């Protein structure tokens, strides 16, 4: 063969490189057939049950208790008893020890929890493994550190625990939201009745076993399960001193109405319609990663998801091109496969809601893009979706979809970006992408959102407070601020 021929000899290119399935083993998780309520350190036999499933396969996983108002009252009474006869009186450093223990046990059992979280919730194992579990443990570690330093956190304000906290958490980050709620409550010296979401109770129920291992005194944490009726009973209970709720704005408003005039403390962490704002000087490839992470992370089941993309018009075309190309590489499928990027939609109900809103977007005239994608036949699935040509007035630009659906809008100047970003009833988070530091600060001052991320998105840390403006709720979780809702301050009574 001559040199020239050798050079012309092009190697054939493969048609595809299909990754072999890489499923995480399920056998680390041992499920009971039936779960009761965890009350006063023991399991309470339920009067009524329902079935919890895996949203990826619709396979039944276990029978779960549906709490009656009486059962909720029993849990509240157990929490009250634990609060008054022990927990509020033990040295703060002792409380810290329990929290440290819980954090370490979560780390030790993280694989088990991660698999369970993906199984029951439908989220990709890589996210439950790399995000949910490390952050949940980090939250307990962080608040363990505060437990005996409350006087330093709030000098001269004589912080005291509130009492019994009723906590209602959502289905998008079941264990992480549990950690966000329980860790600061216990650190501040309260006891807890926690109600996990109807569709994702299993990690909270397994957490009861962590409490047993940590030898937490009985009644300090109680877990009741069930649908909204159980949550309503908890909100109504006279024995509860504080309600912390994360979930939909609609339910949040109902809770606030219910609690008006009762003197119970309340924090609400509700919906969002965050703007992710890309300026023309941003690092584009990384901004595109941030857009993808902002809206397709956890199937878009994220209250602070960057569901509105605001792109400066001068870079609209390359950004949308890059985004579409990137979407074709997202791997949608089995949540337990280690290579899955986007998992299953959490429930049939949520899937219907996403479908309805996407349909409205098409009808209103937005242009839809969905990458070619083979979805499993069983289970609840939705293809990652981008809408372009979206007007501010469309429902998909206004309402929270809580699914893997992005609406793309454009702007011309920083002022217009701020105006459009703030033009929403929500105000939970926002993202700014620019290489210009001064512009980051300028934007952050003007964006009415609880969290403003710069050149990143969906980044959480236990030391950073999180919460909303307007219809996204009030109160902060995380950081020193996150202790405040669980404390009474006596400085006013004591006087100068």
């Amino acid at each position, binding site marked *: 063969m001559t*040199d020239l021929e050798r050079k012309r000899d092009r190697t054939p290119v493969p*048609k595809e490189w299909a*990754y072999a399935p890489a499923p995480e083993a399920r056998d680390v998780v041992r499920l009971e057939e039936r779960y009761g309520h965890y009350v006063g350190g023991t399991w309470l036999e339920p009067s009524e049950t329902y079935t919890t499933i895996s949203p990826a396969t619709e396979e039944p996983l276990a029978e779960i208790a549906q709490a009656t108002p009486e059962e909720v009252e029993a849990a509240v009474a157990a929490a009250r008893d634990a609060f008054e006869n022990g927990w509020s009186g033990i040295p703060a450093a002792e409380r810290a020890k329990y929290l440290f223990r819980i954090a370490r046990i979560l780390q030790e059992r993280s694989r088990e929890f991660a698999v369970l979280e993906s199984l029951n919730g439908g989220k990709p194992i890589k996210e439950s493994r*790399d995000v949910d579990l490390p952050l949940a443990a980090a939250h307990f570690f962080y608040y363990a550190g505060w437990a005996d330093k409350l006087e330093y956190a709030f000098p001269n304000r004589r912080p005291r625990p509130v009492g019994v906290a009723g906590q209602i958490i959502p289905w998008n980050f079941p264990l992480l939201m549990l950690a966000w709620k329980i860790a600061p409550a216990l650190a501040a010296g309260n006891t807890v009745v926690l109600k996990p979401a109807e569709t994702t109770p299993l990690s909270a129920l397994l957490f009861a076993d962590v409490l047993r291992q940590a030898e937490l005194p009985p009644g300090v944490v109680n877990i009741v399960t069930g649908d909204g009726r159980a949550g309503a009973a908890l909100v109504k209970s006279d024995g509860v001193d504080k309600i912390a709720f994360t979930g939909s704005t609609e339910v949040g408003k109902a809770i606030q109405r219910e609690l008006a005039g009762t003197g119970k403390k309340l924090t609400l962490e509700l919906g969002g319609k965050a703007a992710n704002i890309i300026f023309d000087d941003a*690092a584009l490839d990384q901004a595109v*990663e941030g857009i993808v992470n902002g809206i397709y992370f956890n199937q878009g089941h994220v209250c602070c998801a960057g569901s509105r993309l605001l792109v400066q018009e001068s870079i609209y075309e390359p950004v949308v091109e890059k985004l579409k190309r990137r979407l074709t*590489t997202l791997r949608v499928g089995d949540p337990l496969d280690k290579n899955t990027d986007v998992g299953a939609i959490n429930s049939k109900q949520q899937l219907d809601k996403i479908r309805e809103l996407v349909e409205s977007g098409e009808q209103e005239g937005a242009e839809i893009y969905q990458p070619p994608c083979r979805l499993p036949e069983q289970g609840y699935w939705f293809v990652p979706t981008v809408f372009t040509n979206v007007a501010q007035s469309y429902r998909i630009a206004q309402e929270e979809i809580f699914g893997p659906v992005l609406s793309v809008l454009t702007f011309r100047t920083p002022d217009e970006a701020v105006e459009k970003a703030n033009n929403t009833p929500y105000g939970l988070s926002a993202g700014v992408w620019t290489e210009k530091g001064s512009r980051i600060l300028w934007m952050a001052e003007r964006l009415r959102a609880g969290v403003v991320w710069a050149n*990143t998105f969906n980044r959480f840390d236990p030391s950073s407070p999180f919460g909303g403006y307007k219809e996204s709720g009030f109160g902060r979780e995380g950081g020193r601020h996150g202790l405040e809702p669980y404390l009474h301050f006596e400085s006013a009574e004591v006087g100068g």
Partner: protein
Amino acid sequence: MAQAPVLPRGFELPLEPRLPRVGSVDAVALEERAASLAKRSIKREAKVFALELAVRMMDLTTLEGQDTSGKVAALASKAIRPDPSDAGIPSVAAICVYPNLVPSALARVEGTNVKVASVATAFPSGQSPIETKLEEVRWVVEQGADEVDMVIDRGAFLSGRYAKVYDEIVQVKEACGEAHLKVILEVAELGTYDNVRRASLLAMAAGADFIKTSTGKLPGAATLPVTLCMLEAIRDVYEETGRMIGMKPAGGIRQAKQAVQYLVQLHETLGVDWLTPDLYRLGASSLLNDVLMQLRKEKTGAYQSPDYFTVD
């Protein structure tokens, strides 16, 4: 001689063919993306596919003062037939040697698909007059080298004389004639991803067939993030001009697992069209045996001792 347009100091790329804006790179996010791609779990047939591809993409390299014809001949034999006990293992893409050893290398690979690449342009520092560099390139091409791996003038680049860097590449490309030109950026000396991106675009604009991370002579050679940064620049050039430029990470890739990570990154950044030795090379001296060991493990189910793999 090709004359590059005069560039103002503020770095304007030539307008024809149209090229992407230089833009910038966010280091934190780039490294995160690279780390997340490195977590892909590649098993069974997908792994065998990657390992065989890694062999076919390898530039087996020896660049030592102590290199001799004998050493290069041994390396060439290994390149042609990496695993004497398994004829199913393909040859590597090329062997990469110093200019003096090009004739010995060519003599050994004649009649095979293995190409001969020669480093040139005062490798590894590039600190010589342009005439010397061009002379060296012409010489290795006359000897018959299929590919030339040049280094950019980092001194000029870091002092902002981008036009000098650009002109040199243009001239070297012309001196290469039919030979393929790989442009080594030596990323460890460039300091920032922004510089890596800028140098990548500069090299591609000047006519590089491949861009390559490193000489292998410095610590901190190829890394996953820096390679991703260069792949993204290649992608932008492709989107704007349709030109498909090749990529060669080199230095520090020693394990089969790393090779698979590099290929996953390539696959998910540029797509299957780049999964060919015509557009991607792995520059390495000690990677091959680990890949062979993993391939045999996939075939037989058991690891064998390093004694069963030849050390050439």
